[in-house]
């Protein structure tokens, strides 16, 4: 039981990761796939941030009277990772726009029919 409740953050991570991957694989619409990718990436962000939290620690900003702080490093790493994620999403969406211009569709199977690309 303690595994379930004590590690609830990891369960959330796993759920989101699997949901994201499922969307990426199972969805035929290219834009929805990107959504799935974002969910997948979000799960990783939560993994990092939740591991940085110290029980009983406060926000990582120096303040008088506080001795225990949560780890600031994961936050920094995740800010970078979020930026990377944003760039990836932007690029993916740009590709979808171009694909739409070229194929007049954003559905995977219709594109596949047009020339077996996928």
């Amino acid at each position, binding site marked *: 039981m303690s595994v379930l409740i004590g590690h609830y953050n990891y369960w959330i991570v796993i759920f989101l990761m699997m949901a994201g*991957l499922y969307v*990426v694989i199972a969805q035929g619409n*290219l834009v929805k*796939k990107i959504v799935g*990718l974002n969910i*997948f*990436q979000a799960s*990783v962000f939560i*993994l*990092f941030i939740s*591991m940085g939290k110290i029980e009983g620690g406060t926000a990582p900003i120096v303040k008088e009277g506080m001795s225990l702080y949560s780890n600031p*490093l*994961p936050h920094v*790493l995740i800010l*970078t*990772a979020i930026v*990377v994620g944003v*760039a*990836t999403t932007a*690029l*993916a969406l740009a*590709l*979808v726009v*171009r*694909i739409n211009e*070229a*194929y007049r569709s954003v559905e995977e199977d219709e*594109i596949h029919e047009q*020339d077996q*690309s*996928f």
Partner: protein
Amino acid sequence: MITQHLPVLQVIVPLLTAPLCLLAQNRRFAWGASLAASGTAFLIAALLLAQTLEQGIISYELGGWSTPWGIEYRVDTVNAFVLLIVTAISSAVLVFAQRSVTREILSTRIPVFYAVYMLCLAGLLGIAVTGDVFNLFVFMEISALSSYTLIALSEQRRALTAAYQYLFMGTIGATFILIGIGLLYMMTGTLNMHDLSQRLPAVTATRTVETAFAFLTVGISIKIALVPLHLWLPNAYAYAPSVVSAFIAATATKVAFYVLLRFLFTIFGVSFAFKTMPLNLIFIVLALAAMFAGSIAAIFQDNIKRLLAYSSIAQIGYMILGISFASVTGLTAAILHLFNHALMKGALFLALGCVVYRLGMANMKQMRGLGRRMPWTMAAFALGGLSLIGVPLTVGFISKWYLVAGALERGWWPLAVAVLVASLLSLVYVWRVIEAAYFQAPLPAHNDETGEAPLSMLLPTWALILANFYFGIDTSLTVGVASSAAQQLLGVSE
């Protein structure tokens, strides 16, 4: 004073050239600046290699922040070697690019092309030079995103879907690597590679570290295009502009392979990676699958670029096989093949680029009778093909020798036989192209007098071909550095 900052200059020079190309909006200037940046990067890489061979490991603290809290750039024999080959290929490809991109990329987009190319180069060099795992992830994404863009710059619409698929698989791979990094950080509290190698032995028995190992290996395998995670590669190489195919084929998977070496041998250590985890067996099976599936698939391809792409998948199998021996000979073979394959594939893709420049496409039909109309190009392709097969006096032979010697050293002679049989398979697909070029008459539609490729494209192609032969005869640099790198990798870890 500059020599102190070489590690960081290696990345900054191409990185700053990128916005320069974009701002200038002039094709010639963009090309000139890129070539200058790439050439400078090559010089820096050569200097770094010389320095590290003399002094040992070079450690550079970014911004003066001391390790292990600050980001460290750490150069030893392995990554200096990788830096050298990446910058060399990049420079050769850029000389080639001036004419090649005019036919394959929309003229208004050419400055963008050079800008993104520089970003990709900066990313790859950053991966190779850094000593911090998160910094590695960031550079990996920089190079990945720019390579997706480079592929999508092609005029063919299939390149868009190829880039899209590559984006997804690449991002999933990078995210897996990020998960692995996170788990490692969780257990050790550090992101510095050297520090990780010191702290990990104490915690390797935990499931977290084993999970991290698994995520990292799978993530990197996606980037290397190790079978069965190779599905992005054939389309990406086939539909990208020729310059991009040449550059990425010769560098991207090699740098990813370097990341694998770093993680397996420097950070985790041989005993954990190969004795505790059954990586040996998994790698041998996957490598054999890659070697045979790749070679056999290549035999049936009509598009020559896809043929070379599948051939690359097979060659990656060779490199993984070398690692799986976990011996100095095996690792030397793998690192040697990293260098040699970059030379081989770079040369072959450049030769194909010449064909595409004249004929617009590179299918078997286009190759018919090309031996007579483009003699220098096809001669280059034939010689590159011989190197791929592993004829003595070429680099391919040296790699094969070490692989087979490594297998026999371990007593695993069936693997030695497998390597040689796979070479024979490569003979089949190389010879298909050579026969089409020299024995078949061109189809009537293609009979217009297109003639040989321009000199600025032939020269870098032949430079790489001659390098194939030079390093196949005078192996002191490549074998010397590869074996000292192998010893370093195996010695640093237990």
